């Protein structure tokens, strides 16, 4: 038996304690926002927070969540359903394409901004390189993080790109 909280709600789970958090959240708790991508912590699609720390839920057994708090993408918005600034930036920049990796991207970005409210490009690289986006929306992800952080510069034009 595992006792944990998920997005602020206390839950008691009768599951094999070796079962990864990913599958408990998806199949037992019926919350499918957290995605399965690789099963070996290589792609980040399954990222959730465990007591605020981003973890790859495909490779983290539910036993590790005993007595701790799990936050999933469904818990990013406020209780009133209002999107977080990060989620809103994701919409404003039109980040997602297929969208499958985006729950994990958002969870990694949310943890980054909480610990480091104005991250540098290198900080963003370090925090986000574990999250694969097969649609290749890395530049938009970077831009959305900066918008949420309030550090976004105006678009650099193509010519500036050449001269830089």
């Amino acid at each position, binding site marked *: 038996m595992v006792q944990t909280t998920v997005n602020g709600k206390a839950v008691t789970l009768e599951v094999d304690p070796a*079962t990864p958090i990913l599958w408990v959240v998806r199949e037992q708790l019926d919350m499918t926002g957290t995605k399965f991508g690789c099963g070996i912590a290589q792609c980040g699609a399954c990222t959730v927070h465990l007591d605020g720390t981003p973890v790859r839920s495909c490779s983290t057994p539910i036993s590790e969540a005993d007595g701790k708090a799990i936050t999933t993408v469904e818990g990013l918005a406020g209780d009133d359903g209002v999107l977080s600034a990060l989620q809103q930036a994701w919409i404003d920049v039109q980040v997602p394409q297929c969208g499958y990796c985006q729950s994990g991207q958002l969870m990694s970005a949310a943890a980054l901004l909480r610990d480091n409210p104005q991250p540098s490009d290198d900080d963003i*690289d370090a925090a986000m390189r574990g999250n694969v986006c097969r649609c290749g929306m890395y530049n938009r992800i970077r831009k959305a993080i900066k918008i949420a952080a309030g550090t976004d510069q105006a678009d650099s*034009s193509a010519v500036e790109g050449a001269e830089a």
Partner: protein
Amino acid sequence: MSDMTGEPQGTEAPKPEKKKGKWSRRAFIGAGILTGGALVVGVAIRSGKPSERLQKLMASGDNEMLINSFVKIDKDNIVTAVVPHVEMGQGSQTVLAQMLADEMDANWEDVRILEAPGDSAYVSKDIAREYQMPNLKVPEILEPTLDGTLFQIANMMGLQITGGSFSIRGTGQRGMRTAGAAARQMLVAAAAEQWGVPEEQITVDKGIIAHKASGKSAKFGQFAGAAAEQSLPALPKLKTPDQFTLMGKPLQRHDIPAKVDGSAVFGIDAKIPGEKLSYAAVKAPPVVGASITAMDSDAAKAMPGVQQILNMGDFVAVVANGYWQAQQALNTIKLSYSKTDADSLDADAIFARYAKALDEVGDDGGDVETQTGDANASYAKAAKQISAEYRAPFLAHATMEPQNCTAWVKSDGSCDVYAGSQSPLKARKVAADTLGIDLEQVNYTNTYLGGGFGRRAEVDNIVMAVRIAKATGYPVKLIWSREEDTAQDFYRPSATSRFSAGLDDKGKVVSWNNIHTHLFDPQEAPQVPYYDIPNNLVRKVEVPMHLRFGPWRSVDHSQHAFFIESFLDEVASEAGEDSYQMRRKLLAKSPRHLAVLDKVAKMAGWGRTMPKGTGLGIALVPSFGSIVAEVAEVDLTGKKPRVTKVWCCADPGYAMNIDGFVAQMESGIIYGLTATLYGEISLKKGAVQQSNFHDYKMLRMDEAPQIFVEVINGDPERLGGAGEPGLPPLAPAVTNAIFAASGKRIRELPLSKHRIV
């Protein structure tokens, strides 16, 4: 049915309650009124005499039918665009609605989007047409005979596909806009009749129909019913770009909000209302074509949660009460496989096979694809002769969402199927065929796709899931492991391509001779008609391979663009000419191509002095109706080669949603760069060696170049695609940049095979 959340009414030819509109000889618009007073407008066809060539493909003779229901207008002013294409990130559902709404002058806030069901009513006739006759323009596209023929062909092929970068230029340009314009015309006619004013004096703006002189105005909904009483316009007038209010605008995509809060439903998230799902993990023989000869599953049987272990001959499925439980049990199962002819094949053996086939056909054998002048004679007397061989490897699609499908074969023989497919009708049909039941007995639900790239045009996941569900009798969600997804793909084929080119004494390219292995699609991929080369010979040779192959983002352009544009760079280098300037000369008779090339060169500051160890490379590739040129900047001064910037200029005719189009260029560039740097599926003893993202690497955030995109709207009447054309120029732009930076010529991908820094 006024409830716009309900099923669209176009799944069969909608049965209008009343319809005054008379079919004229050229009539093609259908309209009706649905229960609750909603107007529905679609594209009807009247098939005439097909050409002799196509006649044998026709299933029946003359008929008239409403084949598409593209738009509903209900009494609450809600305009529902019924889009016959799926959403896999390319954003075309939004753009299709945007095109329809613009022609209607609908209020965008009142527009809803409904994905059409997997049904023969939504076969991609417009794609068949675009594919068959790409040069027809509006309004010739309204010619009915051809419509009928193509509909029949599309129907027979089970073609309801999202792919080929066709949605906007096919369905959008030819279907959605026409339906929107027709709906507007009928609404105006209805208002004119009721108000007793001439139609010409009526204006429509954001869903409001108005007559200025009398001060009358009404919302769409008020005339939804009356509009259906109007005659059907045979040839509705489409807007010109100066009249566009929504087309071209960067409208936000309808699917994005659900993709930031976790609520978007992908195939892997499917639920069957009121039913508890079981989960299946599967393993197929590592060598394609082998079968399972023995299975030891004793340990698996005893594992927690395991419900059934199924040896299906061509794969094993473990069904359990959770996916992880199923996969854990599967991992303990020991399997033996039958021998196949491919058991000794490795990657080198395949390329050796290609070399042998190419050697055999020599300079003029093989299947001729293009022949102008005499390439061999011209080459023989050329002042300078250049030749080279290029190779590209097998590639997997690696969609972020592994293959999956949920199925329930019920006791009455019918089946519920849930998946995210690029071909919903094909998925539904193959489920029916596999089970030996009628199409109508398959209740198919399509979801969002967690990446498509061509992989989800295949339906092997559907077949597998319904076979498992047939065996269990209870609802099962099949999920492939990443390892299975990587090892059992329909791969982008590997290929070898050999070139020779001749230069005259002034350095002009006078001959071009190419022989390459295999051709899949599109046929123009290896051809360069836009380059002014007088003697041109392009040939192919078929070589068997045992791996399953399928469409992979940009299909054959993905290999041939690398081959052609890299070799052209070699030619320029041998001629002692700047590769941009050489392309300029070769494009003298292709002004749209030249404009794109010039623009990207300007964007990138082509010709500037580059720091040591860095370089720029350029490439231009027209594909899927769009012309795209890219410049890549590489930096070889670090521990590994790095692509730092990519400039992209594209001419898609007209970008119907500019931000969506730019996003597709960005996406194609990253997808292409991933393959350029890392992409390789290799074989050992017939089996795919790669398994997961540690050995089939993906580009990540810290390796992503800055990307700058500019768009030229070069011909609004002839649209090009978006999903694929951004990809092909990327690889050669990068390898040409590596040559510029280091003098190393890359003739085989991926870059990870080479020591570059």
